[in-house]
């Protein structure tokens, strides 16, 4: 399909990154197919945001190899766009000019299209300060979409929103992903969110991939569904199960026998 060609494959091999004495990523391996929607969950400080920042080119890895398509990550790569936990709109630019940020002047017209994509066409002339938190994130999504990225990195973009707005935004992100066919990598601490939107859920603990499962549920997904609940339960159990390991030694080595088997999930790799 033409749509999946729009996405770009992502590869991380034995990636390590630390801040000061603290190692955050310790030999992480992850392969993401073109056009795939992968969610990364894990406890605070497990390194999931660091992985995203590495892929955005905001940090450089100490060891290992990272590839976005054929290239090493680089900040300002037009094919990669990132959404942050806060919208990070420029308060001194009107909504439409925020969306057009970084667009060459001859393509500025596309900003209106992107704004319509997220349902905010009529707010084009407003200052960001008058928008609600959810609307600001939708503008940030439009700003990311306007260059038609091949990889969208989402760093807990819905973490600060109320529960209802969050569900709406999840639907919106899922819709634009299906329409545009980019590769999406969502970092979240909300397991339900991960299961609701992603093809694959990856649990990161101790700086490595601890669980990598395919969510074998059709779309759109229904939160009340028993199978949905089963997947969510299994991932959540896995995230919670490592309290001792992450708080204790600080090094994420676990006995191999600890891995549970989840019948509702298909393990990847």
């Amino acid at each position, binding site marked *: 399909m033409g749509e999946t060609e729009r996405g770009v494959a992502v590869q991380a091999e034995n990636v390590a990154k630390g801040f000061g004495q603290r190692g955050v990523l310790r030999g992480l391996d992850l392969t993401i197919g073109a056009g795939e929607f992968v969610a990364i969950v894990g406890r605070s400080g497990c390194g999931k945001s660091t992985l995203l920042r590495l892929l955005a080119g905001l940090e450089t890895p100490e060891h290992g190899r990272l590839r976005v398509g054929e290239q090493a990550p680089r*900040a300002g790569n037009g094919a990669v766009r990132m959404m942050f936990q806060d919208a*990070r709109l*420029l308060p001194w630019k009107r909504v439409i000019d925020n969306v057009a940020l*970084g667009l060459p002047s001859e393509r500025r017209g596309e900003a209106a299209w992107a704004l319509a994509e997220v349902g905010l066409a009529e707010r084009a002339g407003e200052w960001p*300060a008058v928008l609600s938190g959810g609307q600001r994130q939708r503008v940030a999504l439009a700003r990311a979409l306007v260059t038609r990225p091949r990889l969208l990195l989402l760093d807990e973009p819905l973490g600060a929103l109320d529960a209802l707005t969050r569900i709406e935004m999840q639907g919106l992100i899922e819709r634009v992903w299906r329409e545009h066919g980019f590769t999406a990598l969502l970092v979240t601490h909300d397991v339900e969110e991960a299961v609701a939107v992603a093809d694959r859920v990856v649990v990161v603990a101790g700086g490595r991939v601890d669980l990598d499962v395919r969510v074998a549920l059709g779309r759109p997904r229904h939160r009340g569904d028993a199978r949905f609940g089963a997947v969510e339960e299994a991932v959540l159990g896995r995230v919670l199960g490592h309290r001792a390991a992450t708080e204790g030694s600080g090094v994420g080595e676990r006995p191999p026998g600890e891995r549970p088997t989840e019948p509702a999930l298909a393990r990847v790799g």
Partner: protein
Amino acid sequence: MSTLLEGRLGRRMAPGRRARAAGTAVAGDRRGGSDSTSRLAAHLAPWAVPVLLLALWQALSRFGLISERVLPAPLDVARAGWDLAKDGRLLDNVLVSAQRAALGFLLGGAVGFALGMLNGTSAWCARLLDSSVQMGRNVPHLALIPLVILWFGIGEAGKVFLVAIGVAFPIYVNTFHGVRNVDAGLIEMSRTYGLSTWARFRQVILPGALPSILVGVRYALGIMWLTLIVAETIAAQQGIGYITMNAREFLQTDVLVFGIVIYALLGKLADALARGLERVLLAWHPSYAKGA
């Protein structure tokens, strides 16, 4: 549309006319009048105290309770001002003073802004230069007057130089502070969105630092007048300071007081300009947008 506008205007006009019929706007307000009269009263309220003080001053002078040698009556000051304005001396001297102020402000402001930007964006430059600039900042620039007279004599250059020195530091400090406090998240975002260094400066750093820079501008305008007054009273052959010093020699207290009033008016004018600049440039800012 036009009938609606007329209707609103008509409603707004009516109480005003009623108030005028009753004598003064204040009288109308006391009767517990409508919206527009209370709005008028709110506009007039800040003037009540100065007007009252002026009236009191005039009365005290009139009854000989304040000696004319100490403080001339307000009407005498006004008359002295009128005499100065009539033969064009006032305008000439105001223009000379304003020119010195503007030139010094532009030169000093440019240096302060450039240094602030440099040190704000480059940690290395800040390490190299900031402590030296801070040292210079702590020297009262008016203490340089004897040195400046030695260097430049009593010509224009010395006064412009002093104003520039005085203005440069507040602009520097506030530009530096403003740049340093631009949201790091926005700078990071602009990196991931591929903005060039120049685009990042123009679209992210400069507008982010602008509220702080404008605070520096308002503060610097105050310093600008202060420096000019001192410089002009010490050594000048033209300008408002020269008028007041001349008046002192001939014991013309009315002219002297008028010169002070002119300084106050020019200062107020400069401040109003700075506020206008804030309203236009910071229209996006929730706490400045009220007026817009």
